[in-house]
């Protein structure tokens, strides 16, 4: 176990390890130089010649009919190039595709129309919804012109609470007739029997406030329509550009090949959230087509926070747990409402992903899982790091704490008794996903040892704790073991669009899991170029691929350059999501390298007119066995160019690494039923030591202990960086962040003064240890790490707050995320009475 990573300079790292593996080393990133010198090109930096700029007129009402739009004055402004309203775009383009269709059905049983136009049509449904787009020579002028547009509204009652919206007193979409657009109840095992037989049934209600990734870089899009080819070129910092590009080309009414979406190599953070920004691509494309000039839109922070299509999960949970006197968890009953805002989008899958970690690290066979997916007058949801797993783990850990209290049992002992044991691996969950490998009890033991040290002269020393209590400061910690499901496929994400009867008859052969694509080529100067089919936003994919490819090809990472493919050149793949890339890209890199080496040996053998058995590759050279002759990679690339036409070059290869679940029988049942399949289960135990000031209700995290296992660590520096960042976001979620709304649907957090992001003052020292239990299911043994921290920190902070306040018998102090001071103060006051 180590807590540090090697951080030599690139040159040192390269030479130190000559012919030792680069994989597994904390190689500094190749992405950094351009970023550090200000040369990186983010979307905000891309402005083609002759480019115009767009600004949006956005709704200030949460729910209102649009009575009229007067654009005359705007159009008369000398700098005005174009004004677009819903009427203009409806005559030429399509609505943006929506995400559900199973419950939201009309009378004939067909999916009800729930059209979402890129500009509000006839009525507005959330504050910040774009109503009019204006285009001018620059953004300053565009905003002047936007101010001249006069929209007359007739305000209506709004609903901004997920539970209340279920009553359908205010209905957002008349065509659907109800705000509940999806509902599903799933039963695994025999929960009725479990709840009947158990000694106790424990209940709790938990709220997960609306939070999100809030990347420092806002969304942006630059579209250029080319009349000659009748096609579009779009630069945008959208995430998963090869998967969600249909939201753009379908809206424009074009074929996929006519709409080229290109993501800049540098994206200023996404954390999942930028998969939902297609509206901007659509609007700039439409404007560009009308004007035959490039059009750019750069979202500002106020737009981003209120109407930027970037909020995430917003849930009310009702949890029940059946337990026996001896501390056995017998049954679990999960019920929740997720408030999706005004339109259901692709992230409806967030309500299903928790099935992949349904019982977290515990063995519970009998489970019910039910949700209502509800629309309200809030901005629409998108994905966010964790994709809906974070609230589930939080609510589950809360009911576990409550059960321990009911049983009067030490919460750690209660957890330990129910942990899945290493001899049960791979372990099949009731919901049919598998945990690949790991020793959960040992991980809990290790974190307990760490806390024991803190109790002995450290932050939790009994004398210190007692003295602090005198000051009204309560310290505590409550560890738990938490799973991060990694490397999603995609087939299951259609579950909510699939008819239930069709699902019942589905066969294994109908399942399609998405591979990951990688290309590589050797250039005539001997350099190697690889191309990713995915976008990235700070995860170091270029470094990862160059490091692994260097090992496979026995060259230096600096001999390798890694670039990106746009949505037309890249096959439609799944890309950067769901803690997927380390697993998928490392698998693809191994595959691409094998293919390349085989071809290189063949080319050399052909050249010498010998069999491939008579040549051997090492360190960037092919030798002819017997000693006479060797060819460098540069020479081989030249030979290839001489003998093969461009389209048939053998020094250019591509490879698709199949999703690890594709051929594993163990996953057949989950795949057939379209349950979420995540073949890797990174895991870890957290022990954040918290201090609650009972006078103010504020919570400080004194230190954050964590023991983590993500299988083979390909680049420990990046692994730790991902965990640090995830934990920081988890701390923000647990204590600070929330998109609050007034009852009438007015957003309360529209600046970064209201939506509080954790600063260096809120994030404590993170004490991290690693274990490495390789995954038996993946090529390199790696497991996903992209979402960890955000998935597990909120639950762990909440359990630690419960522990800290245990002596005061406050009822469920952390029953609401974020555990904001006002909320906690109220709870503390109530407990005093």
């Amino acid at each position, binding site marked *: 176990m180590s807590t540090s990573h090697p951080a030599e300079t690139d040159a040192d790292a390269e030479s130190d390890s000559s012919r030792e593996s680069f994989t597994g080393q*904390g190689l500094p990133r190749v992405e950094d*130089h351009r970023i550090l*010198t*200000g040369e990186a090109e983010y979307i905000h930096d891309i402005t083609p010649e002759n480019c115009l700029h767009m600004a949006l007129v956005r709704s200030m009402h949460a729910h209102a009919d649009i009575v009229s739009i007067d654009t005359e004055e705007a159009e008369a402004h000398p700098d005005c190039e174009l004004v677009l309203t819903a009427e203009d775009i409806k005559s030429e383009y399509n609505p943006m595709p929506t995400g559900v269709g199973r419950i939201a059905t009309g009378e004939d049983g067909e999916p009800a129309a729930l059209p979402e136009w890129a500009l509000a049509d006839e009525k507005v449904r959330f504050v910040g919804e774009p109503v009019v787009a204006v285009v001018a020579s*620059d*953004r300053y002028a565009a905003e002047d012109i936007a101010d001249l547009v006069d929209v007359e509204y007739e305000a209506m009652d709004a609903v901004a609470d997920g539970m209340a919206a279920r009553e359908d007193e205010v209905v957002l979409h008349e065509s659907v007739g109800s705000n509940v657009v999806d509902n599903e109840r799933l039963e695994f095992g025999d929960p009725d029997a479990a709840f009947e037989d158990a000694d106790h049934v424990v209940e709790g209600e938990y709220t997960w406030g609306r939070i999100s990734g809030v990347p420092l870089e806002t969304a942006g899009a630059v579209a250029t329509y080319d009349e000659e080819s009748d096609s579009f070129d779009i630069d945008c910092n959208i995430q998963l550009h090869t998967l969600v590009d249909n939201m753009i080309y379908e809206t424009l009414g074009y074929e996929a090949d006519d709409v080229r979406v290109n993501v800049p190599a540098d994206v200023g*953070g996404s954390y999942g959230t930028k998969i939902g920004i297609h509206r901007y691509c659509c609007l700039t494309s439409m404007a560009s087509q009308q004007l035959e000039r490039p059009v750019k839109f750069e979202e500002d922070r106020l737009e981003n926070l209120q109407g930027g299509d970037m909020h995430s999960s917003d849930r009310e949970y009702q949890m029940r747990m059946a337990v026996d006197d001896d501390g056995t968890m017998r049954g679990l009953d999960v019920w929740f409402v997720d408030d999706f805002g005004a339109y259901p989008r692709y992230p409806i899958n967030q309500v299903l992903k928790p099935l992949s970690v349904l019982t977290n690290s515990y063995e519970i066979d009998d489970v019910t899982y039910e949700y209502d997916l509800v629309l309200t007058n809030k901005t629409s949801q998108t994905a966010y790091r964790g994709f809906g797993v974070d609230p589930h783990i939080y609510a589950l850990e809360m009911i576990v704490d409550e059960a321990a209290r009911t049983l009067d049992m030490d919460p750690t002992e209660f957890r330990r008794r129910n942990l899945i044991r290493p001899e049960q691996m791979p372990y099949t969950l009731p919901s049919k996903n598998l945990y690949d490998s790991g020793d959960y009890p040992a991980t809990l033991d290790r974190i307990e040892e760490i806390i024991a040290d803190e109790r002995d002269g450290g932050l939790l020393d009994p004398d210190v704790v007692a003295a602090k209590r005198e000051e009204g400061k309560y310290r505590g910690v409550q560890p738990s073991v938490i799973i991060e499901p990694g490397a999603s496929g995609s087939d299951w994400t259609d579950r909510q669009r699939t008819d239930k009867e069709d699902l019942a008859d589905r066969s294994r052969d109908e399942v399609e899991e998405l591979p990951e694509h990688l290309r590589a080529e050797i250039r005539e100067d001997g350099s190697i170029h690889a191309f990713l089919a995915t976008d990235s936003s*700070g995860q170091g994919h270029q470094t990862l691929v160059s490091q692994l490819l260097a090992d496979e090809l026995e060259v230096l990472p600096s001999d390798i350059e890694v670039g990106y493919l746009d949505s037309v050149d890249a096959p439609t793949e799944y890309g950067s999501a769901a803690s997927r890339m380390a697993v998928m890209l490392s698998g693809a890199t191994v595959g691409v390298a094998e293919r390349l080496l085989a071809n290189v040996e063949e080319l050399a053998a052909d050249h010498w007119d010998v069999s491939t058995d008579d040549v051997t590759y090492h360190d960037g050279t092919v030798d002819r066995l017997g000693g006479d002759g060797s060819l460098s990679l540069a020479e081989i690339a030249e030979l290839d160019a001489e003998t093969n036409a461009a389209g048939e070059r053998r020094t250019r290869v591509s490879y698709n690494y199949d999703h690890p679940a594709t051929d594993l029988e163990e996953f057949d049942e989950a795949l057939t039923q379209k349950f979420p399949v995540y073949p890797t289960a990174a895991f870890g135990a957290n022990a954040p030591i918290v201090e609650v000031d009972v006078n103010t209700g504020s919570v400080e995290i004194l230190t954050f202990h964590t023991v983590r296992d993500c299988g083979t660590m390909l680049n420990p520096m*990046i692994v730790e960086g991902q965990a640090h960042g995830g934990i920081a976001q988890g701390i923000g979620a647990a204590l600070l962040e929330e998109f609050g709304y007034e009852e009438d649907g007015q957003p309360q957090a529209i600046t970064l003064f209201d939506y509080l992001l954790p600063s260096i003052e809120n*994030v404590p020292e993170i004490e991290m240890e690693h274990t490495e239990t390789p995954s038996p299911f993946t090529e390199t043994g790696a497991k996903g790490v992209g979402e960890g921290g955000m998935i597990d920190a909120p639950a762990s902070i909440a359990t630690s707050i419960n522990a800290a306040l245990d002596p005061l018998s406050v009822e469920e102090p952390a029953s609401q995320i974020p555990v904001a001071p006002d909320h906690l103060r109220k709870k503390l006051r109530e407990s005093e009475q």
Partner: protein
Amino acid sequence: MSTDSTDGAAERPTEEITVIVNGEPVTAEVEPRLKLSDFLRYECDLHGVRVGCEHGVCGACTVQQDGRSTKSCLSYAVQADGAEIETVEGLAEEETDSLHPIQEAFHETHALQCGFCTSGFVMATKELLEENPDPTREEIEEGLADNICRCTGYQNIYEAVERAADAMED
């Protein structure tokens, strides 16, 4: 809002200013409402100046004005008339293409992920270390509390600052 050009048809008032940017004087006709951040990004083509919030919270736009860290989104270009501005582009040794010790330290300690906040952090660190070449963790916390990084969780940023401090002392 930010802008790339001001070449519209409308009559808009402008003023002439001269700002010393990374050692070079730049003279331009600008609208009084042009933000300093936009002036640097678009008139001076210094894209290392990043705009994350335009209301003074995130610190991505931090540059040095007359030797002090300042959030360039919070002032107008006309207010910088006559001032000396240093941006992240002014740090690396151009001839040798070698990074400034602060940049080097951020690279070595993986103190950046998406990098959108990084120029702001580097410039804030520069001021911090100029005033206090050997800061404690508390002093680093205080010195960088005006900048937000959404990716790194700050731990590696502490390490970067400490490493840079060591390197600059030698």
